[in-house]
Each structure stands twice: as structure tokens, then as C-alpha cells.
């Protein structure tokens, strides 16, 4: 399906005119976007643009005030993140949603624990869990020393990798990543980008949020730019160059002026 990557393919996720108010704060005022199978959609925008709020509505954490939200063409109304997970949408949150006092394995399978045995003796299949955790972490380039280790003892980057590996493992249709590379070093970042590419090859839709235009341009097929709660536009990779994207993302003109003042170093 490499040739139906763009607009023709039926979107897995599609939102139209999503509005979200937090009391008097308007976080989103009419955002539209969609993502299809085997496509990486990058969500770009300045701090406070509403990126995290948008993906939180997609993953069932917050309910939109109004707007149309469809998965596979069917209107949905997620009551909780569990509903979104059941619909095959897995998310790496900006705050990672990890619990420091719990072990890597327990965090990895939190909310999705595989069980064996008959009720009332049904229990978590920990052997399987440890094995999968090790294996998935190995794939993302981290050899965990001990799956019983508390997540609180991991470094920020390692923690981020656990969150990503977990979402990749459980994301059946769509993978959403909210600034996944913010705490990562160079090697780990390229590993994550490679990972996004792999997931795309498998036919999942990916929504990738980042501040870094270069990271976005490296893996993205389309770019949706948010600004102050609105969609500023969506561009296919063929339609836009990297520096244009950079300008749009930072709110356009100011940066051009600034870049002039600094002698073109931004």
C-alpha cells in the first residue's frame, strides 16, 4: 500500500472541528486532522498550541467539548483511556504514565495484564510478562538488567523507552507519541525514529508530536501545524520544505525577523 499512503486511503482516525474548553481556557478551538494506515502524521506547534490536549482527546483521557471524532469511519466517544486502548490506539504520554515504585514489568503491562488459569484462580502470567518486557526492551536497544527493577531507578531516557516499547507492543492500529524524544540522547533518538518507521511499515498509523522539525521531517509523511488551538494547515512532505515548516511552526514571521537579526542562524 505504499502508493496509497496519502489522502486516498480511508483514515483510521479522523477528527473534525474538535473544541476543548477547560473552564474559561480554550485549549482547542476547532482542530481537524486525520491519519491513515501506514502513515506518519507529525503534529507540530509551539508550546501551549494544544498538541497534548488534542492527543489526550484521541486517547480518551479528556472528552472534547464538541467536534466529530471517528475511528475507521465510525463515530466514537471514548469514556476512558481503556476504551481507546481497546480500539487499538496506544499512546506515549508526554509525562510517560509510568509509576516509579513499580517494577518495569508491572509498568509495562499495567492495565493490560495477560492472565492464565480459570477464575477464581486467574492470575498474571509473570513469566511471559518478564520475557516480553526483556524482548521488547531489547528491540528498542536497551538491555534491562532486571525486570523487577523499579522504574524509579531508571534514567529519564530509559523510562521513555519503556513507555515507547509498551505503546508499540499494545498499539494495534494507531501509535501516538507525545514528544517522545525530549529526554533522549542522539543514539536513542535515532533508534526511536527508526522504530517509528518500522511501525509504519507494519501498517499502523502513527501520530508523532515533536518540537524538532528535523526529527519530524525525517519520518513524517504529512505535517499538521497547530497554533493557539487551531489547525494552521496540513502539508504533505512533497508540498513543503523543512525551513518553511520551521517558520510555520514557530508562528511564521517573528522567526524570520529574528533569524534576520541573528544573521540566519536559527
Amino acid at each position, binding site marked *: 500500500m505504499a502508493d496509497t499512503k496519502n489522502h486516498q486511503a480511508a483514515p483510521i482516525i479522523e477528527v473534525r472541528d474538535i473544541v476543548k474548553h477547560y473552564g474559561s481556557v480554550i485549549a482547542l478551538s476547532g482542530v481537524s486532522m486525520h491519519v491513515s494506515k501506514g502513515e506518519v502524521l507529525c503534529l507540530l506547534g509551539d508550546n501551549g498550541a494544544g498538541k497534548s490536549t488534542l492527543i489526550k482527546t484521541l*486517547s480518551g*483521557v479528556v472528552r472534547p467539548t464538541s467536534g466529530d471524532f471517528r475511528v475507521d469511519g465510525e463515530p466514537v466517544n471514548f469514556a*476512558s*483511556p*481503556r476504551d481507546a*486502548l481497546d480500539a487499538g490506539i496506544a*499512546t506515549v*504520554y508526554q*509525562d*510517560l*504514565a*509510568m*509509576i*516509579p*515504585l*513499580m517494577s518495569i514489568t*508491572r509498568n509495562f*503491562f*499495567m*492495565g*493490560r*495484564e495477560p*492472565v492464565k488459569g480459570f477464575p477464581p484462580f*486467574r*492470575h*498474571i502470567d*509473570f513469566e*511471559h510478562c518478564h*520475557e*516480553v518486557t*526483556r*524482548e521488547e526492551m*531489547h528491540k528498542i536497544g536497551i*538491555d534491562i*538488567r*532486571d525486570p*523487577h527493577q*523499579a522504574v*524509579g*531507578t531508571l534514567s529519564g531516557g530509559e523510562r521513555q523507552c519503556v513507555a515507547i516499547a509498551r505503546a508499540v*507492543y*499494545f498499539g*494495534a492500529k494507531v501509535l501516538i507519541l507525545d514528544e517522545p524524544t525530549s529526554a533522549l540522547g542522539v543514539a536513542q533518538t535515532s533508534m526511536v525514529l527508526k522504530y517509528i518507521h518500522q511501525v509504519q511499515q*507494519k501498517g499502523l498509523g502513527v501520530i508523532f508530536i515533536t518540537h524538532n522539525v528535523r526529527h519530524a521531517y525525517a519520518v513524517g509523511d504529512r505535517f499538521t501545524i497547530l497554533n493557539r488551538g487551531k489547525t494552521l494547515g496540513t502539508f504533505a512532505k512533497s508540498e513543503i520544505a523543512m525551513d518553511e515548516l520551521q517558520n510555520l511552526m514557530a508562528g511564521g514571521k517573528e522567526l524570520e525577523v529574528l533569524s534576520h537579526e541573528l544573521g540566519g542562524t536559527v
Partner: protein
Amino acid sequence: MADTGQKAAVAPRQDERVRKAGLVTQLMRRPELGALAGLVLVATFFFITADRSMFSLAGAMTILEPAAQLGILAIAASLLMIGGEFDLSIGSMVAFSGLIFGVALVNLGLPLWGAIIVTLIGAGLIGAINGQIVIRTRLPSFIVTLAFLFILRGLTLVGLKWATGGSTQLRGIHDVVADSALAGMFSGDALGGLFTWLAEHDLIDKFDNGVPKVSGVPVSIIWFVIVALLATWVLLRTRIGNWIFAAGGDPNAARNSGVPVDRVKTGLFVLTACAAALIAIITVLDAGSTDARRGFQKEFEAIIASVIGGCLLTGGYGSAIGAFFGAIIFGFVSIGLTYTHFDSDWFQVFLGAMLLLAVLFNNFIRRKVTGER
């Protein structure tokens, strides 16, 4: 892709940075380690200072019976504490459940099984109300259940006077409960046959006529052990256990990962209430009456036993078996002092010191576990 087709050759390879998690580190990870150490310490202290009779079978039963009654509450309280909440109303809940149970038996004339069901449902409902208020208002459970500490104690007083025509004690329960297998599950001794057999074979002390000096194990101790084993298994091996840790560790992260946090917490409030009801049923059947002071201050004792057992006040960490040991320490100290030449009023000093030590120790362990400085 949730199934693992490719169980690749990812044998648990050793990372050169692994300091092989030694036995000490592994032990340190167990929240109940402190309680176990405390128990050894306390037992040693009494072994040196107390009368020999404390360490007889009869002595063990006198220590374990109150420990069991507290322990059942403490285990439920520790699960709730791991889930990130407190229930200060469990002591009053024991009294209130006693009222429901007594009224159901004496005033309404229900059979024992009916009274037990009514009591558990009544207590469970109040637990659910506690939980719902905490969840919906997002107020600290500390305050909400403090309110219920007074509400339930007051309701018990009012209800007892109404049911008895002015008294704060409701009697006559032995008159309406016939001996039955069901009654035997909640009162008296268990394993009588075993003890008789042991006495016959001279394995335990007996009177001259061959009757064993200790005729059996009080049923509360059997319940205590069953509850401890069950709670430990649920906490460490099941989904619900993982959800309890998650809900207490970080409710937002848990919710975002698909854990039904509100349901877990409500369930835990129902559980503590039902544990209180169980203690009410056992102690009321034992005494043959119920009164307004039943379960007085048990909420604090249960929380203390949980903390001694390794629960963090901030939630997300602790163990049920720790609360089991914590309650036994409690029994040891409260009863044990009467076997020594010390004034038994030292009890509270001892208890406070244990609590302080436990909190300091838990805090230290938490830092070890999370690597936080």
C-alpha cells in the same frame, strides 16, 4: 501484534553493568522486611524478659487472638493504603456493623445466615458511599472517613438506644443463635479434633483427665491466616493487585494506562468496610452482645499495623503479609507486657516508638527502591 510469534534468542543476557542483584538487595525490595525484623526483635525482647508461660501454646493463643482481630482490619487497611487511600471509619464501622447484626438477629429475628448477609451488605454499602464521596469530590479520604468515624459512632449510639429502648448495649444474641456449622465458622474454636489427637499423643499439654489445655484455635486466627494469604496472593499475583499498586502509585498514570482506578478504589473501601463487618460478626457472636464502644480506635491501630508492615502513607507501596506481621507485633506488645514485670502502661510508649521506627525505616527503603535522593 500483542502475541509473541518470535520468541527470539533474547536469552537474559548479562549486561556488564549489572551488579548482580544480591540477596540483600532482593530482601530490601520486600516491603515486609521491616515488620519481620521487628517481630524477631520484639519476640527476642519478650523471650528474655517475660514469663515462660507466654511462650506456651496457651500463651500463643492469648497473643494471637487479639492480633488476629486487629490483623484482619489491618490487612484490609493496608490494601486500601497501597491503593492510595485511608479509612478512618473502620473502628466505628465495627460498632455500626455490630448494631446491624444485633438488630437483625434479636429485633428482626433473622436466621444467622440472613443476619450475616444483611450485615455485610450494609457495611459494604457504606464503604461504597465512602469511596464514591472520595472519588467524586476528590477530597482527601482522610477527611471524608474522619467524618464517617463520627457519623457511624453516633448512629450506633442512637440506633442501640432505639433498638433496646434506651440502653447502649444490645444483649441476648446467644439466646437466638443456635449452635450450627455456620455459627462455628464465626465463633468458638476450630481444629478441636486435631488438638484432642495431639493431646492423646502427648504432643501438647493436657489436663489430668486427658483434655488438652488448649482446646483449639480461635476461629478468628483461622480467618486471619486465610485473609492474609488471600490478600497477599491477590496483591502480588493478580491483575487487581497490579491495579491496586498502580492506583496508589499514581492514579493519573494508572488511568491513562487503562486501569479502572475509580472501581479499584471503591472496591477497596467496600473491602475495609466488610473486614470491619467480619470482625463485628466474630466479636459479637463471641460476646453475645454488642455495644457502642466496639471497635474503638481500631482505625488507628490498623493503620499503625499497616505502617509497621511496610505500607507507605503516600500509597503505592506495601504488603499484606507485612500487615499480618504488624498485627502480631501489636498483639505481642499489648498482651506480652502483662507477662513481664514491666508496668503494662508502657504499651503506648512502645507502640509509638515502633511506629516512628517503622516510618523512618520505610522512608529509607523507599529511597533505596526508587533511587530517589
